[in-house]
């Protein structure tokens, strides 16, 4: 327990943590010689929906398990609803609902029983809310868990989470195994939860879902945060795709600095352009008589892929160039 040095400082600190439902800084976790997390940062503002993106094995579930006090961090700090996720686990869990990506239930209990038990373990069982979400997710609660498909087991956890009154929903790839119809229901439920003033941490690798739902996005790679912010912040300074019909010779565009991947189909050309080079490119474009110009900002998927696979090296180089510039 730190001593209270300055009441003003304490008050400000409290305010800060009040506005952040999740505050993770420089988190580290090792499993033997494997570094699962190498200084991961993650923030979820109270009342917002935060997307948490990364491929399998990048450390999403490890981070979430640390936030739930199931694993102990080896370094860095993690704060959950203003408390310590390890030390204050029991108290915090009354205010948190968690859905794992792979839900294991008791095979000889029914889905309805499991939902009640999970609610009771958190401390609130609201039968009318449970019934509402059972209907929304179209789940038969009288079936034994062993006969549920993957998607139905997922629904059990989702119904338990949404029907609770938890302030924070931690959802780890929750739509794993759900059909597109149910993904739609899930999207509505998250929006509704946000409307109720709850905070949501949504780990996923479904870009459309994150793009639609999330106020902020954190992208991680190999246990480290590589990108985080609102979608428009992430798009800032990123390459947009421009498609336009011109009268002039498209070849003159090829020489312009900041134009990439120029392709021409008759008079219709498309190319990528750096945000910073936009003014210059527009100047070069104007004399060519542009018509029907469409500018497409990078999708979340493109932003994400810049950190992975064949584009990862490009991104790393760009990032390096940006810092030296």
């Amino acid at each position: 327990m730190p001593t209270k040095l300055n009441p003003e400082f304490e008050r400000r600190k409290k305010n800060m943590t009040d506005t952040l439902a999740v505050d993770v800084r420089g988190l580290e976790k090792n499993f033997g010689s494997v570094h699962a997390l190498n200084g991961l940062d993650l923030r979820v503002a109270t009342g917002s929906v935060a997307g948490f993106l990364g491929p399998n094995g990048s450390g999403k579930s490890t981070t979430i398990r640390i936030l739930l006090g199931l694993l102990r961090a080896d370094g860095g700090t993690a704060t959950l609803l203003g408390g310590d996720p390890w030390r204050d686990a029991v108290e915090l869990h009354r205010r948190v609902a968690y859905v794992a990506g792979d839900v294991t239930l008791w095979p000889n209990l029914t889905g309805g029983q499991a939902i009640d038990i999970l609610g009771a373990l958190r401390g609130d069982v609201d039968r009318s809310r449970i019934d509402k979400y059972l209907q929304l997710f179209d789940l038969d609660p009288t079936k034994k868990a062993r006969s549920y498909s993957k998607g139905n087991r997922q629904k059990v956890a989702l119904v338990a989470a949404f029907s609770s009154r938890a302030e924070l929903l931690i959802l780890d790839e929750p739509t794993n195994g759900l059909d597109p119809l149910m993904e739609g229901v899930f999207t509505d439920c998250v929006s509704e939860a946000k409307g109720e003033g709850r905070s949501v941490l949504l780990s996923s690798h479904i870009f459309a879902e994150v793009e639609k739902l999330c106020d902020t996005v954190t992208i991680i790679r190999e246990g480290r945060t590589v990108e985080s912010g609102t979608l428009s912040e992430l798009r800032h300074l990123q390459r947009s795709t421009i498609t336009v019909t011109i009268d002039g010779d498209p070849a003159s565009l090829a020489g312009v600095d900041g134009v990439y991947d120029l392709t021409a189909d008759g008079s219709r050309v498309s190319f990528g352009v750096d945000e910073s080079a936009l003014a210059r490119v527009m100047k070069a474009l104007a004399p060519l008589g542009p018509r029907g110009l469409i500018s497409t900002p990078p999708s979340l998927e493109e932003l994400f892929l810049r950190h992975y696979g064949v584009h990862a090296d490009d991104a790393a180089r760009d990032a390096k160039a940006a810092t030296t510039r």
Partner: protein
Amino acid sequence: MTAITTQHARTEALTPGRGRVIDAYAGFGIMVRFILRRNWLRMLIWTIVLAGLVVIVVQSQRVAFPTQADREAYASIANTPAVAAMTGLPYAASTLGGILNIKIWMTLAVALAFAVIFLVTRNGRAEEEAGRTELLRGGVLGQHAYSLADWIVNAGFTVVVGVMIALAAISQRLPVEGAFAMGASIMGVGLVFIGVAAVAGQLAQTSRGANTLATIVLGVAYLVRAAADLQAHGDNPSGLSWVSPIGWGQQMRSYGENQWWPLAISVVAAAVLGGVALLLERRRDVGEGILPDRPGPRHAAALTMTPVGLTLRLQRGSIIGWTIGVLIGALFFGSVATAMAKLLAGNTPITQAFTGGSKDLVEGLLGFFAMANVLLISAFALQSADSIRSEEANGRAELQWSRAISRTGWALSRIVVPAVASLLLLLLSGSFIGASFGASVGDASQGGRFALASLAYWPSVLLIIAFVVFCAAWLPRAASAVTWAVYGVLVVLTMFGDLFGLPDWLIHHTLFTAVPRVGQEFSAVPLIVISALAIVLAALGLQRLRSRDMTSA
């Protein structure tokens, strides 16, 4: 016109279940190798243990009955209702082979039956329940290939066990034909129960259900032949014996007349059961059972929503099953004690082993039974407490620990159930032993005395539970194997310590033998020491469970 007929013919050929017969067995060879690879160690251990028991028993009996005169004397008293009911009707009891049969045949046959039931289910229904069969069947694997491979590998296993039992007996210079008849008779029982487990695996939808069904059949077979052995004419059981698969094995009368033809009944029965299982498998979908799965309650009962209530609910079936088993055992122990005491009259090493040197034979024997009863209750307590580990291993602990319950609180809810249930079981089964013994000697006060004597073992059971907690916390991945192995060693030390000629200080200071027996002078010291150890181990375990990372399987 021709086109339509052709199409019609093709449709018929493509109708499910009407493909070429041979296709249903495609991949059989691969599955045989696959099953062997997954099970060879289990099968090897079973073989070594079962054949090893033969060697140990022959040697101990040679010491117990060194001369032909000793064996003749034994033969004259061997045939009592208790022996007939428990281990089968004695015959040829004046030969070492006959004595071997009395001492171990039933144990080997029942153990092999259990082994194949669990192995067949493990590679059959359990795989299907886990969804792995579906994965394999999605490839080029015939409908029956996996199941048939499972049964054939198990049949091979029973043959090996039979041969090894025979060779073990021959190595101890027992008659060759008798040795092979013994091996073959035990093998026959194994084969029939492969068939039983095969059918059970088709009927039930879960591995638990399949094991339960097959075990019930085994239990009925045991009881039927016990009834037959009790209604004997001389050393021949009543005709009822032919109803039980275990009876077919007994009717081979190894080391006696060595009749080989009953083996044919077992083999034919196994084949018929296998055929029935194949027919059932043809008629059902992957993952489904023949017996229906009923809908359950929509809501959890208020009790189930508490941590202790949830533990009780999850273990309800197991607790009921153990209670019935333990209480039947207790009634049996109490009622046969006087009969067995007469049988054991005379101061042989066997008598010594059973009675722990107690002066009064009946008292000594009852003390031994009370201890055997406690071993059963300990097995229940171990299994129940093991849920601390199994829930974490299969991922359900994550579900619970991420709710508002501390790990310590959660673990305590898992400990308190076996602790309290074992206390009740000790009191109940103790009074059952006492009451049934009291009924046979006309003394109604025995119930209370035995209830109290059994109660003295409660700290020992608590120490077992504490040890499970300790292992689950400190060695999560090895916990189940370690605790069961330690329990196995304890059982052998407690029950057979004397027979192995182990040093006295060891025999008298194990977890169960250190506790004062019925008829012995009571001393609180061992109970206090054991309780203290239990508290320390449990505390260390809970402390560790609280401070370590969650560790899934």
